């Protein structure tokens, strides 16, 4: 397009140099480019209509099919680094990997919480997708306040097992991604009772579906929750368990242990239970920044192509030349850069903390927790508002799903409530500031 070409000729700096600079640490430009190009080149992408034209079931089926092919291809290409794997799978599936929570929550939790024996038993199975898992914490009546979770796991001496139950309607596990139709295993957070005592929230590995038939196992009710504003492929599910029995060694026991006699021993700091959540929250800050950058890219390019109205010489004006359009879009542009840089710093702090000794990690945990909570809240709420500005700045065409802007805004909208409601997260930051 001649207008875009002219715009590019006007640029006063070396674009590639800026790309390399802005993505210098976390994003590894060259590796990311190579991996995503490999993913986009696969012929599978030419075999279906754009996702917007598929109904819910076709949509889900297409994404599962693509996710399976993507994981096979990734193995063939020898992509083992977890960040690289997520980039490759994300590019392959339009960021709707049917196993994303398996990779980002289920596997890391096993790595962090399992004993050596459990690690040996489950990690390889999980890595090879012989089991597909998700992380079940939130309940129908309980969101951020984890102390109120009602699901119980009661130790039974006679059978050396736990009996897991969701005793009330509000205890129903609700919202976990990839739970509705995909997962056959879950890491389930439940209140542990042993020898008549409540020993707090602990993680349990629970099989929920038959490996051969994918039928829910006895005592398990599982399904997808109602339609959402977006996330058609998120497969968010609900789960009810009625006195489901699991062997004692399926409690993840690195941080706390229950022995054959039902004695409970704490082995590590329970705050580490939330480390997986922290990792997720840090990566969300990057995602929010990238989503805003995408929305801005779409709106600015289109504003360079689109002409409307007329100047006093009777010529149509390029939309991007209107101060009002600049007032809408340039703050979004500057904010995208600001968020990428802020994430970069957050990630640096996070990596430094995680590389420390365990007792130092615990000492620094409140700082990184407060920072990631606050930045997740700010990047999601501001990006959501700004992506809507980008959408509106494209006039009627911005309302089309094919503009890409509708989807971006809805993902950001969801981001304002998942992994912690933004008001609650900002209160966490405020508490930390008071302590400081």
């Amino acid at each position, binding site marked *: *397009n001649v*207008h*875009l070409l002219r*715009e590019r000729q006007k*640029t*006063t*700096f070396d*674009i590639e140099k*800026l*790309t390399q600079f*802005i*993505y210098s640490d976390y994003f590894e*430009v060259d590796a990311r*480019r190579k991996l*995503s190009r490999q993913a*986009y080149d696969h012929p599978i992408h030419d075999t279906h*209509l*754009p996702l917007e*034209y598929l109904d819910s079931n076709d949509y889900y089926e297409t994404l599962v099919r693509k996710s399976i092919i993507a994981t096979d291809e990734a193995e063939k290409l020898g992509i083992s680094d977890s960040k690289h794997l997520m980039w490759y799978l994300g*590019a392959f599936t339009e960021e709707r990997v049917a196993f994303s929570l398996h990779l980002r929550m289920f596997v890391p939790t096993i790595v962090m919480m399992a004993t050596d024996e459990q690690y040996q038993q489950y990690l390889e199975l999980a890595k090879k997708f012989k089991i597909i898992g998700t992380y079940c914490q939130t309940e129908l009546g309980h969101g951020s306040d984890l102390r109120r979770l009602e699901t119980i796991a009661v130790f039974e001496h006679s059978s050396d097992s736990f009996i897991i139950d969701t005793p009330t309607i509000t205890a129903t596990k609700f919202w976990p991604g990839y739970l509705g139709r995909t997962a056959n295993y879950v890491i389930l957070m439940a209140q542990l009772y042993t020898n008549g005592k409540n020993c707090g929230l602990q993680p349990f590995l629970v099989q929920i579906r038959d490996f051969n038939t994918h039928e829910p196992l006895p005592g398990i009710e599982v399904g997808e929750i109602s339609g959402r504003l977006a996330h058609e492929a998120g497969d968010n599910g609900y789960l009810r368990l009625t006195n489901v029995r699991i062997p004692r060694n399926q409690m993840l026991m690195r941080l706390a242990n229950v022995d054959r006699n039902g004695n409970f021993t704490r082995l590590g700091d329970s705050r580490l239970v939330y480390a997986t959540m922290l990792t997720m929250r840090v990566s969300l800050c990057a995602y929010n920044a990238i989503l805003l*950058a*995408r929305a*801005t*890219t779409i709106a*600015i*390019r289109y504003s*360079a192509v689109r002409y409307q109205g007329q100047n006093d010489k009777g010529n149509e004006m390029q939309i991007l*030349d209107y101060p009002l359009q*600049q007032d809408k*879009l*340039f*703050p979004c*542009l*500057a904010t995208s*850069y*600001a*968020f990428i840089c*802020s994430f*970069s*710093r*957050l990630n640096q702090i996070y990596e430094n903390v995680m590389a420390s000794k365990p007792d130092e990690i615990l*000492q620094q945990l409140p*700082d990184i927790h407060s920072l990631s909570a*606050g930045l997740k809240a*700010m990047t999601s709420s501001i990006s959501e508002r700004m992506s809507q500005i980008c959408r509106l700045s*494209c006039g009627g*065409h*911005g309302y*089309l799903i*094919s*503009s*890409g*802007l509708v989807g971006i805004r809805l993902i950001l909208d969801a981001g304002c409530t998942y992994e912690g409601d933004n*008001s609650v997260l*900002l*209160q966490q930051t*405020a*508490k930390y*500031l008071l302590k*400081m």
Partner: protein
Amino acid sequence: YQQCENGEELISPTVAYLKETATIFSPISNISNLEYYCKIFELRARRLIKDMYTKLLEIAASTSQSPYETFLENSIELVHIARCHMETFIIRSFYDKIKVTSDSSVQNILNQLFELFAVYTLLQNQTYDFVKFTILSADTIELLKKRYQQLCTKIRPNAVGLVDAFDFHDKELNSVLGQYDGDVYEALLERARLNPSNKTKIHPAWNNNLLSLMKE
């Protein structure tokens, strides 16, 4: 804040600004100095935290409210402070990152973006605090509004280059409006033709329902 008051070492550099002592600025002459923007955001957050700290001490001394009740009662202000702290973090991170750029043309455009971000954030809805703490005067705010427009004009020629630098592949953007080649109208029409509703020239709803109505 109490640690600062007692002269203790702070655990985290992200709240290091609490220890700063400078409070006086001569803003108009400082506008071209980018560090100035970091400083005024830090000063505002520091003042807000200090005021809240003092207020909470007074409440603790004069009432029997529990810390929980006090937190709840002040939660709207506290969340405002948390936002201001995060803005400070974002502004400082942005500035620290861009000041190490070695390429002068890249540095130049990043400086403009940084300043635009700072001025925009300042003008958005937070000016009240800056005025209340006399960090900014009404005249300075007027000056910043003009600066904002100047910055938009400066950034305008590089707008497309700046989004190209995000390096998004067309498949990643997945947008008929934002594709790299700019052939927007062709793409819009092509996508419309793919709509399954256009598979048949006459939609079944017409034959099933409307045709008989028309015959009547």
